[in-house]
């Protein structure tokens, strides 16, 4: 298990974090706008509606930007070596921060297709990460 700063859990993302216990990635959708929202909010930022529905993602994404961190950032251990911090665009139309794992860091490039993977957290939740598709 990679040494990490473990995520806080906001009220508004409680449904998301509970689903990660079963390794399910659910996205909040505004049923009025038919658009996904990220990070999880209980209010649609486009129409103010609170009719939010949680739907499972396909797990498909594309790298939008990436950076190899040769020196560890917050919570990471030096001995875990360099790693890739990336922004990925999910098929559902939202962008999130993540790590791209299971490949050499230098092989990760902008535009690369990636797929959802999971890393365990100490409290039973899981953290969504991505690996080459």
């Amino acid at each position, binding site marked *: 298990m990679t040494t990490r700063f473990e995520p806080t859990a906001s009220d*508004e993302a409680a449904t998301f974090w509970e689903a990660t216990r079963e390794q399910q990635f659910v996205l909040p959708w505004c049923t009025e706008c038919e658009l996904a929202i990220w990070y999880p909010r209980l209010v649609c930022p486009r129409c103010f509606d609170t009719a939010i529905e949680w739907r499972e993602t396909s797990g498909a994404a594309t790298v939008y930007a990436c950076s190899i961190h040769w020196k560890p950032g917050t919570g990471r251990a030096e001995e875990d070596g360099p790693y890739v911090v990336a922004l990925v665009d999910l098929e559902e139309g939202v962008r999130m921060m993540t790590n791209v794992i299971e490949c050499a860091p230098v092989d990760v490039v902008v535009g690369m297709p990636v797929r959802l993977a999971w890393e365990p957290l100490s409290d039973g939740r899981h953290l969504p990460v991505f690996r080459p598709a």
Partner: protein
Amino acid sequence: MSTRTLRGAAAIVGVADAVSPTGELDTRGRVLEAAMIREALDDAGLTLADVDGICCSGLATGIAEYLDIHPRFVEGTFVGGSSFEVHVEHAAAAIAVGLCEVVVGVYAATPRQNRRRGQLAPSYGPMGPDVGGEWETPYGTRNPMTSYALAASRHMAQYGTTSEQLARIAVDTRRWAALNPRARYRDPLTVDEVLASPVLASPLHQLDCCLVTDGAGAYVMTSAERARDLARPPVYVLGAATGLDHWVISQMPDLTVTPGAISGPAAFARAGIAPDDVDVLEAYDSFTITALLHLEDLGFCAKGEGGAFVEDGKLGPGDALPMNTNGGGLSYTHPGQYGMFLLVEATRQLRGESGSRQVEDADIAVAHGCGGVLSATGTVVLGNEATL
């Protein structure tokens, strides 16, 4: 003097509040803030799309990000319970002079609910909920460097910008620092030396990053009338504008376009100038990529062409566009919030006090600040007596 009165210039047109006889509300935090904003806008017969100014007693970037709005006026003064009256004063002044048209101010606090929920529900401080701690820091981010590295990564992939081109900005900025006896680093720097410095978060090298130093500054402003009787030649505010975008980098709509694309053209329009009229540019250089994005967003070159624009050396002493003439955040000083030093150096240049680094015939200077992680910009166009 009638042009200088607030009287009748702005009005409160919608209000809302939420309370409960039990002393406890069902919702809190951003959800509660959003509900209040919605109700007050409904009361006014306006919508979120009309809002171009935001006030709260803390960090407004979080609320703007949550509601996905991009206001051009922000007021986050925190002076305790009187914050909101102070905000109204400032918002009225802003509306009076046309900085913005529709300002929404908001407040929500739920101490009873938070206490009942105990450890599961920490109270939100002035910063709001910890968006970074939930959605970014778990991935081992090293901010602010991570955010700027990602912006550089995207610019390179989208426009072919190179590390050599970014390095050129550090090199030209060092040429200015060499002329400033108070600069932290003054030795000549080459592109190769920048590229040979360690990569901490690719594609940024150590010498693409600003310094960490102590530093302090201050400014004084008064009316143009009074300014003329004082000790120094006045440096007039010809135009100014704000752009507010996101709080965390993963919420930035396009990593190649900063809110400077809003504040820059707006400030230039208010001042009645074009980029060609700028004699001195003080543009926040937290990283080389930051300065490159400013050059594009302020209109000194087209979007995506920043790399080609800087590569033949346009920014140093004697060059076409003198930028960061004190040596910048890259070589002069950077205590954390460098924007103060942009204003100080722009003022000194326009007064002709900059000694061996003085830009000849400097009449118009721009101080362009950029805070957070490309989150918010403030563009100020300054001019000497000749520009009035």
